[in-house]
């Protein structure tokens, strides 16, 4: 493995709910980059992220994070090593306040996280305004900000985002993607999965295309955006 890879997945097989969702994929994520995994619904993208996060056990394969195999480790051990997941559908804690949600993000940290809290509030001033509101009262876009902020509170090296644009208005989606770039500028590696391939490919340094459990293409974001197969299948461009 090359020295710059923060994450390497090798020959990963995952069965989920009785079907083989991931069929032997191998991919790598370079440190400090934004990598995206695009593909249609049910391609196995979400399952891949959940497996890296330790929420789902793989059938076989290796998941190397900074050279250490994460397979068999529990989610709290994986979070403690610096990998966090922004789950699909935001999944904020609706009855907890915005601040409580953020503090849950830092749950495993023993050090002082007040600087990270200030940073999250700087990234999302809206969250600071709503600090004492129950998260359930936030709008969809604000909840997505909170979900991202919550993941950042763990002081991750790698943030995995599962469909952050799902169900959000185009303007909000733009905002979320500019935040993703900002986070990345601060040195955090991002692994992003998206159905909104257009935005994802524009943002990513490297991209993979996943189809029914296998990776079928890879390249820089621009290369894939220009690829005819990708254009017709995922970008909605007619030949």
């Amino acid at each position, binding site marked *: 493995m090359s020295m710059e890879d923060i994450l390497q997945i090798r020959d990963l097989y995952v069965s989920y709910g009785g079907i083989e969702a991931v069929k032997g994929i191998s991919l790598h994520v370079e440190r400090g980059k934004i990598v995206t995994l695009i593909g249609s619904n049910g391609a196995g993208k979400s399952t891949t992220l959940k497996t890296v996060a330790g929420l789902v056990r793989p059938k076989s394969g290796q998941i190397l994070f900074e050279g250490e195999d994460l397979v068999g480790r529990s989610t709290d051990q994986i979070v403690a090593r610096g990998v966090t997941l922004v*789950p699909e559908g935001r999944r*904020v804690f609706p*009855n907890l*306040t915005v601040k*409580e949600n953020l*503090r849950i993000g830092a*749950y495993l940290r023993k050090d002082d996280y007040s600087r990270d809290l200030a940073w999250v509030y700087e990234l999302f001033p809206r969250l600071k305004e709503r600090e*004492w509101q129950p998260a359930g009262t936030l709008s969809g876009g604000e909840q997505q900000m909170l979900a991202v902020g919550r993941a950042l509170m*763990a002081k991750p090296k790698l943030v995995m985002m599962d469909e952050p644009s799902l169900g959000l208005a185009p303007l909000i989606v733009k905002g979320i993607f500019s935040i993703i770039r900002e986070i990345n500028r601060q040195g955090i590696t991002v692994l992003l999965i998206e159905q909104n391939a257009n935005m994802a490919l524009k943002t990513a340094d490297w991209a993979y295309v996943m189809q029914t459990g296998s990776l079928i293409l890879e390249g820089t974001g621009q290369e894939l955006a220009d690829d005819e197969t990708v254009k017709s299948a995922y970008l909605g461009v007619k030949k």
Partner: protein
Amino acid sequence: MKRPMRREAVLTAAILLLILAAAVVLDAALPRYHIVIKVIKKGAVYALVAVSMNLLNGFTGLFSLGQAGFMLLGAYSYAILCIPVAKRMGVYQYFQGGIMRFSLPELCSGVFGEAAGTVVGMLLALLAGGLLAGFVAYLIGLPVLRLRSDYLAIATLGFAEIVRTFIQWNALGPLTNGSNLLKSYPDLPGAASYLLLIGVFIGVIVLITSSTYGRAFKAIRDDEVAAEAMGINLAHHKRLAFVISSFFAGVGGGMLAMYMGTVQALSFKSTMTYEILLIVVIGGIGSITGSVATSFFYIAGLEWLLRGLDSGKFLGIKAPGVFKNGFRMAVVSTIIMVVVLFFRRGIMGDRELTDLLRRKNRRRKEESEHG
């Protein structure tokens, strides 16, 4: 953690102190067995048990119905550890005085002197009961907490029935007195001492719910998957909540034994768990204030204010044909149905006394600004 609020906290503390002071006055003014004193004592005990159930069902989202079982463990621990040695022959008359050869209050009297020692011994016995309940919860927690919602409820309900049967087992007679009564153990003197003690225990629960652990419990309740993704170890935290809740149920059981004066496994049936569940739901799942207030209202209504409905005369109305045995329960059930219909989330929802005080203050402030 909610928004910091010193003013509301001070007001709340003042209200609680006033209630305590009122209880001291009542203790001095009323005879020991007056119904008001009894209502305060029993209401306080139910408040603790309801809050302990709320910690699990309301704050962590685990639907457990094992409360009566854990209370029973606490009640028996308290009674067994506190019966004076001289009285054991009489209590354990079918088991040659039983196998326990000491009594905690008497042992402690030897160290701290008669009065202080008795109280210390009683408190130690209560804590021992809580520890036993917590330990048993730890043991059964691992298999049982893998179950979800209804299945967890069924398993814990079954556990409580097993405990009740086990305690009545004749082979355990030298320790538990089999299916016979345990009695002659000491009680705390007045209603105020009950309130004080319960206040301390509930205060500890409040501290737990507002700690980092409490936040993790609430996160699990709100969204298990997201909580796990944030690195909260589900198995560990659920077990912790179960053990803490059971500990306080055990302590509450010990105090119930204290209040009742005699204890018998037979009275810790699942109906007792349902009563407490009712209090938690009516008061508001996730509201400690709701559980506490409802406990007192429920006990006061059932044991005191509505008694007339059973005895032929209520609020000056004499109607022996309608007001007869059992009518009280029909009225209580009707009240409960009405409350549930109009307060879908219980009387308090998930708010606390401090929230109510804050809201009132803010309204007053707004009025003074605009008016």
